[in-house]
């Protein structure tokens, strides 16, 4: 019998063995857990459950109040900002913030390039290497901890 035939036979034999299995008995605690959880949910006030389960009136009122607040905030902000200025003046004020921001970013870029020029390249490569080494070390520690703590404990708990 070649390998393909063996695999086909194995599939059939296993399927036969697995298919007719009765369902496992659920733990006795399951029903009480579900009922307890449902009772706990039922005892919550309506505003503590998800929005979809709020009473229709409360949902409509909530949406209307939120919309009114958003509208009031936008209108209030715009009118306070504009005052009696024209639209051009307002635009100029907004754009006025852009120039200092660009200046700050340009200064930061200059500072970085200055540091790169001043610091010897060996130091930069060393720092880069150290960063990579720390990353690999932490990754290795995480993998070792997972294999040691998590895998062993789960396989011990699930063993035959």
């Amino acid at each position: 019998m070649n390998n393909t035939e063996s695999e086909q036979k194995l599939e059939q034999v296993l399927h036969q063995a697995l298919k007719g299995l009765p369902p496992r008995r659920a733990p006795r605690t399951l029903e009480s857990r579900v009922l307890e959880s449902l009772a706990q949910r039922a005892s919550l006030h309506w505003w503590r459950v998800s929005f979809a389960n709020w009473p229709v009136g409360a949902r409509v009122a909530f949406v209307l109040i939120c919309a009114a607040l958003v509208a009031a905030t936008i209108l209030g902000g715009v009118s306070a900002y504009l005052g009696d200025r024209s639209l051009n003046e307002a635009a100029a004020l907004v754009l006025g913030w852009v120039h200092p921001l660009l200046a700050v970013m340009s200064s930061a870029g200059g500072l970085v390039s200055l540091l790169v020029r001043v610091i010897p390249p060996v130091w930069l490569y060393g720092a880069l290497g150290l960063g990579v080494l720390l990353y690999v070390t932490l990754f290795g520690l995480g993998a070792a901890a997972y294999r040691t703590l998590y895998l062993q404990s789960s396989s011990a708990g699930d063993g035959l």
Partner: protein
Amino acid sequence: MRAYQDMVFSTAARLAGNDTQAEDIAQEVFIRAYEHFSDLRGSVTAGGWLKTVTTNLTLNYLSRYRKRWRLFSEMRSTSEDSDTDGPELDWEVPDTILADLSAEQRSAIVEAALKQLPDHQRLPLVLYHFEELSYQEIADRLNVSLTKIKTDIRRARAALLPLLQDCGGARDTLDG
């Protein structure tokens, strides 16, 4: 709930390979069923609905809680999976497995053996043999390639057979 709790728990336990997680998932399934009680009450498709929700919730649960560990747990298996031909079966496949046992005994042995398989082998195997999904459907559900699904299922069967035979042998020894 009593009519379906064994089916829901079994489905979750076989897929998750962990009874504690299966109980959490089953609890969530029945809470969702309660939220859809008006649709499900008296429906002939309630069992199918519960099974589908259980399968989906279990797969979501496993992908959510185990994705972060996949890199570590499958670090070794990734290189092993590179060959797509799979291992040779170097033993004779019997005509039947555990046929002389009662359904309860077979169930206990199979459940215990399934727990010994790694997730990436147990999940497609259970979906194929218990949930009767096709290879393509399993690949779509698990978001992996069709080739990998076929390889994983083949390897799961090859790993399961000696586990079942060992358990059968141990039972014979105990009985004798």
